[in-house]
């Protein structure tokens, strides 16, 4: 009896541990197929808020490879390429519809779009597939995975190289600079932009009126934002003045770009893996201090990591939110009050501000695998050409709320009269293109960026709890972040 019990328990223990070992196959922690994109994925117009709906990976959930719908059959004689994506419904539906239309427009090539769970799951699935020699032809990867993908030389085929090999006359200039720049090395495009968004400010017009604020003059600077938030709360118009989703994306990465200050050396990591974080500057500390002061006086509420805070705006809890431009659809659907959009605030005593904001979202990567044929690469190039067409790009922009990736897509949307019908929908584009990107506002390319974001969350949360000062928080975050960068650099040496 005793021995049996011991043996049984040990087996149970080992079995559990074994299941937890990070085997290259994404086994136990896989998200259910319906999972909304999570982790460091930035834009999600209609995606669920973390607390209420978004299903999370559990050990009990089915593996991400389990597809629910039967796959359409490939017409005979077509060259088929696989495309793995990480966009949940309803955004994923739009993507699938575009892929379907591409297939209909073709008699030679066929793209098979397969949903692989959230971005993190898609990334892990692609990595595992590559290691098994079965990588998909195209994989969608979130922006903070860019450094990891670029470092994986040999595993990926840069887009400019794909263009050269397939005779595709690729002109990078048709793509919006702040979008293209994020995924380029110099002038060479490495991955193909797809879904991009940028953070903006949403404000509750009804609450503004109730608080005696002029909704036609939304706050422009941090001082004005703070005053408005304070007034919202003091007048009882809303319980909370300001909140924001994606804290690091908006108030670290975009904040640095808007104020033209480096997030890291080496042009935010674009020029080399030996970049060092620089976000403990006086201005960065000043922003955190402002937020801490606002939290103390009750005009700002920290709503949690990633997209957890989004719900606080449509529910009427907070009068102002800094959120992804892609949150528009959700706010439109859920808000029961009039609302408006405006640019992100800045510190107006800094010379030469504000600059353009930067993007979040994902891009498409071409992956290598043994036995790839020239025709398959041609099919990929053909698909990329298709999604860069103004009408396809404009449709993508209008139906999803993501930014257009090309200037022509934006012009087409304008010509369609879309912005007249949806005032403010062009604001993200205007904010993103308001200045030529500088070295500090082109984007970033830092290894293990998802981990660095978590580090910043942790240090900020400690500061908001009053466990450390703003300076200590930023210094700690930089110190820990640099260790992560060195770890990344070491792996690729």
């Amino acid at each position, binding site marked *: 009896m005793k021995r049996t019990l011991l043996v049984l328990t040990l087996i149970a223990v080992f079995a559990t541990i074994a299941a937890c070992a990070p085997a290259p196959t994404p086994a136990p922690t896989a998200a259910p197929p319906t999972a909304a994109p999570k982790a460091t994925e930035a834009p999600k117009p209609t995606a669920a808020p973390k607390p209420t709906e978004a299903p999370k990976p559990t050990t*009990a959930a089915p593996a991400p490879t389990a597809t629910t719908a039967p796959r359409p059959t490939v017409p005979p004689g077509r060259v088929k390429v696989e495309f793995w994506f990480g966009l949940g419904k309803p955004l994923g539906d739009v993507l699938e519809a575009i892929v379907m239309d591409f297939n209909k427009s073709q008699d030679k090539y066929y793209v098979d779009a397969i949903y692989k769970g959230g971005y993190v799951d898609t990334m892990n699935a692609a990595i595992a597939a590559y290691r098994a020699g079965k990588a998909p032809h195209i994989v969608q990867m979130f922006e903070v995975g860019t450094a990891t993908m670029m470092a994986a030389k040999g595993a990926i085929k840069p887009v400019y190289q794909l263009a050269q090999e397939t005779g595709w006359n690729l002109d990078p200039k048709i793509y919006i600079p702040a979008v293209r720049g994020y995924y380029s090395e110099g002038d060479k495009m490495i991955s193909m932009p797809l879904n991009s968004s940028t953070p903006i400010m949403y404000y509750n017009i009804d609450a503004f009126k109730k608080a005696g604020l002029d909704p036609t003059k939304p706050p422009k600077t941090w001082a004005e934002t703070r005053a408005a938030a304070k007034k919202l709360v003091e007048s009882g118009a809303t319980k909370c003045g300001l909140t924001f989703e994606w804290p690091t994306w908006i108030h670290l990465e975009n904040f640095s770009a808007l104020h033209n200050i480096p997030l890291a050396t080496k042009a935010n990591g674009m020029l080399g893996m030996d970049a060092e974080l620089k976000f403990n500057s006086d201005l960065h500390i000043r922003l955190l201090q402002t937020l801490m002061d606002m939290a103390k006086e009750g005009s700002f509420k920290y709503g949690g990591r990633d997209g957890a805070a989004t719900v606080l705006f449509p*529910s009427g809890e907070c009068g102002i939110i800094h959120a992804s431009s892609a949150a528009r659809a959700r706010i439109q659907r859920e808000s029961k009050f009039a609302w408006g959009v405006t640019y992100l605030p800045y510190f107006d005593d800094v010379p030469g501000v504000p600059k353009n904001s930067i993007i979040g979202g994902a891009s498409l990567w071409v992956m290598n695998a043994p036995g790839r044929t020239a025709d398959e690469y041609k099919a990929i190039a053909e698909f990329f050409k298709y999604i860069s067409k103004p009408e396809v790009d404009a449709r993508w922009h209008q139906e999803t709320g993501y930014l257009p990736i090309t200037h022509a897509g934006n012009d087409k949307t304008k010509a369609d009269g879309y912005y007249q019908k949806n005032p403010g929908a062009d604001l993200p584009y205007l904010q993103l293109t308001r200045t030529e990107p500088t070295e500090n506002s082109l984007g970033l390319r830092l290894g293990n960026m998802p981990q660095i974001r978590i580090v910043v969350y942790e240090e900020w949360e400690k500061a908001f709890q009053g466990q450390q000062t703003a300076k200590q928080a930023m210094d700690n975050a930089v110190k820990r972040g640099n260790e992560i960068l060195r770890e990344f650099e070491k792996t690729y040496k």
Partner: protein
Amino acid sequence: MQRRAIFNNRILPYFLLLPQLVITIIFFFWPASQAIYQSVLEQDPFGLRTRFVFLENFQTVLSDPLYIEAIQVTAIFSVSVTLFVMVLALFFAVMADRQIRGAQTYKTLLLWPYALAPAVAAVLWNFIFNPFIGIFGRALNDWGLLWDYKLNGTHALILIVIASSWKQIAHNFLFFLAGLQSIPAAVVEAAMIDGAGAWKLFRSVLFPLISPTTFYLLTINMVFAFFDTFGVIHALTDGGPGRSTTTLMYKVYSDGYVNLNLGQSAAQSVILMLIVSALVWLQFRFVEGKVHYA
């Protein structure tokens, strides 16, 4: 009667063992050996560059103050969950074991939480305790108790302890109840005739007699708290705020799956395997002496 089975066929016993062996090899030995192999390597996620680093990953992990922090969190968390679960489940079981009206209904209701996936349980608890949209969470704030598990580490830890325990109580309840019901009625009646009150009866008769169950549950609960609480933590707190709910298990996940640091994540898995084996061994070594097997 001779209890030893005699097989005349030499192959048959191995054949009968085969399914279990295959399962153990595929689902335990193979992945575990992969973890051990990976833990001595430094490798990029795509496997393009691999370097043998021997025990360097272990050295890095063990000298990392954040890892030590995760050990502390895990210790507090598992002990709290285990205590909380066992005390409550035992209390419920003793109550439900009495001759009361509707006992069957109580028993059924108490078993429901066990049927839920951890992530679903977490979503439910979020509906209740979310400081902004949760019913109870809002009420707490309205009453002047500043409840915010998204920013307060202690609150977050309390919440995941409650959410994890709630799920596990049903399982424990079932075992305790079965244990209590297997005690012969004569023993209980004899004690009552001797004048034992409810507490005395429980302390001197029932509790010692169900000690094998208690011992078994102690081990299972520790293992549960170490490994099966990932879903709850992931869905409720993501290991935050700060690092206040980052347990060892959650760290393995975030380092390996999110941050793609395979070597260190594997090293952590191996360490975790050793810690839990040691815990189980300790329990059998020292606690078991006090257990009466019927």
